[in-house]
């Protein structure tokens, strides 16, 4: 705490004060998408303000298929039950459990009923841009280079009425397809189910990696909070993230930052407990220190703003601040931040830090570089709704002032 205070008292000034009627940098690092305002307002909404990528949460909306074809040479998925049927059941239980981690968070619109069926497909190459969410354990992909264990491809629509496979977007930012690929061809990489992990200490925990990747399929980018499931670095072989889920607490592996992010992304309109918010600006003491290009930058961009529950000392939420947007857009880089869906009745301390720790801007690229579109990126883009994302400001230190 002393370090934080010392750091915050260093050279810059963070002016933390309230703002009204401005939508600030939403999200705890979500993948953002700018609607295509070249389309009629009926398709784009007419605003160039970024919207977070998200799934629909109506009953049965989020179906997943998984390939039962597992790599055998090398064998990449290790299970406790070695029989073919038992092995598949064990893997399927991990997938179900990992999905349950996310639907187990209280006060969100993402519930168990949002999940569609989990189906098996006896074909290796089911991952692709087909409008079906898939998990593949034995599908080669050109993106796999040495060291790449797994990744998730998420495809989002920037307008209403966009078709991918049999899915047609009904909202801007709707995720149309999200596929998880596990590396099938690296002989040095294996994944083990929780039941098999202790016997295979050199394997990666399938459940931890799957839960993290499923977070991407819901629209999360990475989090800069070290305890978060969406922190971009997975546990070392033989270990797992947080604690295992239980029937009593299915979301146990998640950190509060993940839960707060999920409540922000999939807010429950009937919730009355997680309705607190903290918002403000991160501004430099000397405006001349701001970048001159692109023009219009009036605040610190890309600061990691963190809320800590004073009573417990726990990090409750962290967000990447630095921008705001009011319809019809575009995004303004004014140093705004918003920490939303906090538990009411608690006291929080807030601090801002540069993104120069274990998480760097490259880890959260999709949450930062996709905030703007312009005529260079998209021919014919209206100038009035154009902007250019400034570089992330990593050269500041902060101190706080009380709200006016």
């Amino acid at each position, binding site marked *: 705490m002393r370090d934080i205070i010392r750091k915050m008292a260093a050279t810059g000034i963070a002016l933390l004060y309230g703002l009204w009627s401005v939508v600030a940098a939403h999200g705890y690092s979500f993948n953002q998408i700018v609607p295509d305002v070249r389309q009629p307002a009926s398709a784009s909404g007419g605003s160039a303000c970024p919207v977070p990528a998200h799934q629909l949460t109506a009953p049965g909306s989020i179906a997943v298929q998984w390939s039962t074809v597992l790599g055998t040479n090398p064998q990449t998925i290790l299970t406790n039950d070695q029989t073919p049927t038992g092995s598949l059941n064990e893997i399927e239980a991990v997938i179900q459990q990992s999905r349950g981690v996310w639907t187990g968070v209280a006060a969100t619109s993402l519930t168990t009923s949002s999940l569609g069926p989990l189906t098996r497909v006896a074909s290796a190459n089911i991952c692709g841009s087909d409008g079906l969410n898939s998990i593949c354990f034995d599908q080669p992909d050109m*993106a796999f280079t040495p*060291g790449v264990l797994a*990744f998730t*491809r998420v495809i989002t629509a920037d307008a209403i009425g966009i078709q991918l496979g049999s899915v047609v977007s009904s909202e801007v930012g709707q995720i149309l397809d999200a596929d998880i690929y596990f590396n099938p061809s690296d002989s040095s990489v294996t994944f083990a189910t929780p039941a098999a992990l202790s016997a295979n200490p050199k394997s990666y925990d399938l459940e931890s990696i799957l839960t993290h990747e499923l977070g991407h399929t819901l629209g999360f980018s990475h989090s800069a909070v070290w305890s978060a499931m969406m922190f971009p670095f997975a546990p*070392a072989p033989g270990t797992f993230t947080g604690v295992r889920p239980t029937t009593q607490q299915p979301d146990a592996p998640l950190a509060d930052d993940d839960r707060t992010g999920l409540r922000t992304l999939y807010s429950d309109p009937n919730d009355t407990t997680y309705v607190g918010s903290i918002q403000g600006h991160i501004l430099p003491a000397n405006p001349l220190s701001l970048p001159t290009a692109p023009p219009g930058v009036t605040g610190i961009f890309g600061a990691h703003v963190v809320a800590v529950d004073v009573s417990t000392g726990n990090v409750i939420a962290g967000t990447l601040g630095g921008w705001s947007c009011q319809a019809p857009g575009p995004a303004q880089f004014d140093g705004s931040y918003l920490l939303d869906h906090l538990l009411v009745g608690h006291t929080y301390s807030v601090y801002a830090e540069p993104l120069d720790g274990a998480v760097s801007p490259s880890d959260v690229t999709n949450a930062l570089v996709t905030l703007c579109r312009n005529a260079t990126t998209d021919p014919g883009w209206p100038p009035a709704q154009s902007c250019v994302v400034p570089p992330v400001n990593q050269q500041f230190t902060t101190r706080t002032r009380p709200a006016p």
Partner: protein
Amino acid sequence: MSYVQRRRFLWVLFLIGIALIAIVANATTLARLQFYQLVQHSSAIARVRCLRADTRLDNGEIWTDTVFEVVQHDKGFLPPEIVVRMPGGKFQHLHSHVDGVPEFRPGEEVFLFLTGRPGRQFYIVGWTQGTFRIRKDMRTGMEAVTQDSADVPVFDPQTKDFTKTGVKDLRIDRFLEKLNKEIYRQSL
């Protein structure tokens, strides 16, 4: 509890926290590669300058092809311009994204550890791990190199210590010395 005790207690908590973090030695999608492994897995290593990026649809997937001018190559043979392919990008109304993929701005100079063959697209070994950004100090003109994944602590069970093995703010001459030394060592 005295101030000293409290301070000691906080240190213990801090170290436990670090221990919990430091077992996080591998990226979600990435297994930690040491510098020598990056060199070993690379068919080419070069200092390149980003020229432009294009999005393509290939095999039903969206890819971003970034064109780089080769400024100097340290390992392997490379033509004057190369194309580095990464998953994700924007194609018509579809936005495909993969977290953890490095992106580049036109004009930016980086060292890339590449796998692939001339005449085809190259891929970056270990994504952020094979990406080393070059930053120039405007006052001194000195260049320094920082690996995208530089700040992840790694626990060494032998020394029971935590180290950040990534390259961060390393003077470019030192970086090249380290690189060339490793390339030479592997050529023996």
